[in-house]
Structures are given as C-alpha cells and as structure tokens.
C-alpha cells in the first residue's frame, strides 16, 4: 500500500468500520498521475470487457450460435480492439508531449490538401453532418508534420460530431492571417459553459457527463491537440456559446 494512499482507503483495506456516508468514489493518490492512471484504467476496462465477454461467448456457445450472430460478435470485438488501440495511442502521445520526446517530421505541405482529406474521411465517419469548407485563395504551403496536423483536425472534427445534433452543419475554414495560417472548425452543438472554455484543453476535462451521455472518452484529445499545435509553434483556443455551438481555432506559423 502506497504511503500516498489517503487514510480513508487505508482504513478500508484494514477492514475497520466505515460509515456508508464516507464511502464514495475512491480519492485519488495525487491529482496529476493518480487521476490520469485511474481514468485510463477505467476506460481500458470497458473495451476489455467487450473483448473478453464476446470471446468467451463465442468459445462457450459455438454450437448454439448462427454464423450471422458470430460475425456480429467478432465485429464488436474488432470495434473494442480499435477503442483500445486509440486509447493506447493517446496515452503514448500524451507521454511523449509531456516528456518532450515527440518527434515531428516537418515538410512543406499544402494545408488545403490536409483539410480536404480530413473532411472527406470525416464525411464517412459522420455522414449525418454536412461539412462545408471555406478556404482563402491560394493558401501558402506551410512546414508541418502533415500526419500530426491531420490528427489535430480529425480530433477536432470528431468532437464536433460528438457534441452536435444530427443534420447540423460543420464548417472548416482556413485563411492566411499575416505570418500565420488560421484554421477553424465550427459546430452548432451543445457548446461549452463560459467558465469552462479555458479548461477544455486541460487533460481529463469532460463536458458535463450527464449532457454528453453515450460519448465515451478519457478527456485527452484536446490536450494532445494543444501539445501538437504548440510543438509546431502555433496556438489553439476555443470560442463557444453554450447551447449554440463552438469553434476551435488553431494557427500554424508560416
């Protein structure tokens, strides 16, 4: 048992009487490492539960299941494995950003190509949302790690999908502004409370879970986006009106 473990937890382990009113979610050993680890472990267990559950369901009841049903269960396992892979990638990215070991492979890149590719794939992931592109004329090439900037765009677009109603338009914009490119993604979703606009880039931040029921995630996506944009020398921020929508802006220096 770690010395950092709160006294209440130690008492619980030692089996002393514990009033029910004092028993809630376990307190975290420390705000930084402990909460992240706890949240990540929690999020890992859900896809693991799906993988383990369906694997043993298939093994134990093989003779009783039809081929179509088996295929559905394998698809569930595949989706859960994808969730696990995404989560592990997020943790690795977070770790590299925090330790300063993230390596960028920068090359002159046409940002409009990245935006168009991101929008095309986003239309496939979220066909219920029309996506409109507005780009300035002849955007200059910018020296970036195309894969990482695409990662930022994908993450911001996925957030726009998650937190806005079906059929609402998402606008992706890019324009030159003095010595930088300004890129933005706007949605007409639930927005973010005014007091939380600065906090959305903090790790583990989630919009009110009751309002975002069904939207899973650890709360690392925008933190990683900030790290990636800043590693390119840019800035990222959010403007939002609760109940009406949000716009994520980020810049890349020319």
């Amino acid at each position, binding site marked *: 048992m770690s010395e950092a473990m709160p006294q*209440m*937890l130690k008492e*619980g*382990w030692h089996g002393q009487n*514990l009033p*029910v009113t004092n*028993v*809630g*979610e*376990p307190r975290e050993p420390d705000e930084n490492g402990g909460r992240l680890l706890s949240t990540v472990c*929690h999020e890992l*267990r*859900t896809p*693991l*539960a*799906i*993988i*383990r*559950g*369906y*694997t*043993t*369901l298939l*093994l*134990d*009841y093989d003779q*009783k299941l039809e081929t179509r049903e088996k295929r559905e269960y394998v698809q*569930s396992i595949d*989706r*859960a494995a994808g969730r696990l892979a995404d989560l592990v990638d997020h943790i690795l990215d977070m770790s590299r950003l925090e330790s300063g070991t993230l390596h960028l492979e920068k090359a002159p890149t046409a940002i409009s190509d990245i935006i168009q590719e991101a929008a095309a794939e986003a239309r496939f992931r979220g066909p219920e949302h029309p996506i409109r592109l507005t780009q300035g004329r002849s955007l200059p090439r910018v020296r970036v790690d195309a894969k990482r900037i695409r990662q930022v765009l994908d993450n911001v677009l996925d957030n726009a999908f998650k937190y806005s109603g079906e059929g609402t338009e998402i606008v992706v914009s890019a324009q030159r502004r003095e010595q930088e490119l300004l890129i933005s993604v706007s949605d007409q979703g639930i927005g973010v409370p005014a007091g939380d606009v600065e906090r959305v880039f903090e790790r583990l931040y989630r919009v009110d879970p*009751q309002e975002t*029921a*069904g939207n899973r995630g650890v709360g690392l996506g925008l933190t990683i986006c900030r790290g990636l944009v800043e590693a390119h020398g840019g800035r990222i921020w959010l403007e939002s009106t609760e109940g009406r929508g949000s716009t994520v802006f980020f810049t890349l220096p020319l």
Partner: protein
Amino acid sequence: MQKTRRETSILVIEDEADIRRFAYRVLDLEGYNVLQAGNGEEGMRLARNTRGLSMVLLDLKLPDRDGWLVLEDLKRDPELSSVPVLVFSVSATPLLRRKAAAMGASGYLAKPVDASGLRRAIAATVQWQRMFEPGCPEDTAAG
C-alpha cells in the same frame, strides 16, 4: 414450487450496448428470461412493471443517473426491496464493494468478466434469492 429458468426474470441495466448484449445473450442461452434497459429510468420502469422479477444486474455508470441512486431506489421500493441486485462495474475497489453491500446489494461483479464468470455470479444470486421463496428444499428438510 421453484421457478424454472425461463420463469426466472433477470433485468440487465447497462448503458454500453455491446456489454448489455453480451450479458443478455449469455443469460438467454442459459435459459433465463432476460429484460434489458440502457439507462436508469428505463431500468426502474421495467423493474416496477415486471411481476416476479428474480434479480437485477446493475451497471453503476449510467447516462441519465448514478447507478448508486438506482440501487437506492430499488431497495427503497417495498415491491422491489427483496429483489437481489448484483452490481456490475469496471470500478471494483474494496471500498465500492463495501458500499454496495451496505446499500443492500447482493453481490459485486467486476468487469471484465467472461461468460462463465457471469453465469456463476448470476446462478449464485438467483440461488440465494430462492432460499427466501416458499417451497425451498431447505423448508422441507427442516421439517
């Protein structure tokens, strides 16, 4: 007269669709009558409307309300208070297990769980509930 498995109604309250379907299918293949709810409100509605409900498998992380509150409501309802509740959660610290026990849960099943673990936990909970039913074999044995 003891209920047959098909007469044994189990309510699964779980918001994660894939996990809910896994639990449903295993228990259905085992011959139980399984009801499903994806949130706390629907779960309470089904619990109140199902005559002779045998047990509830209850996830703690639900989209509309805290699973602990659902457990509290089940235990406060005079018609449902004797229905065993097996808590089903990814968080399974000793503290949480003790809290569930103190609130009247019959057991605590941690995720991930395999099909056999689920079968055993459900069978044990159903068996425990049968001990309180009239006509239980122990009644006869005790004379």
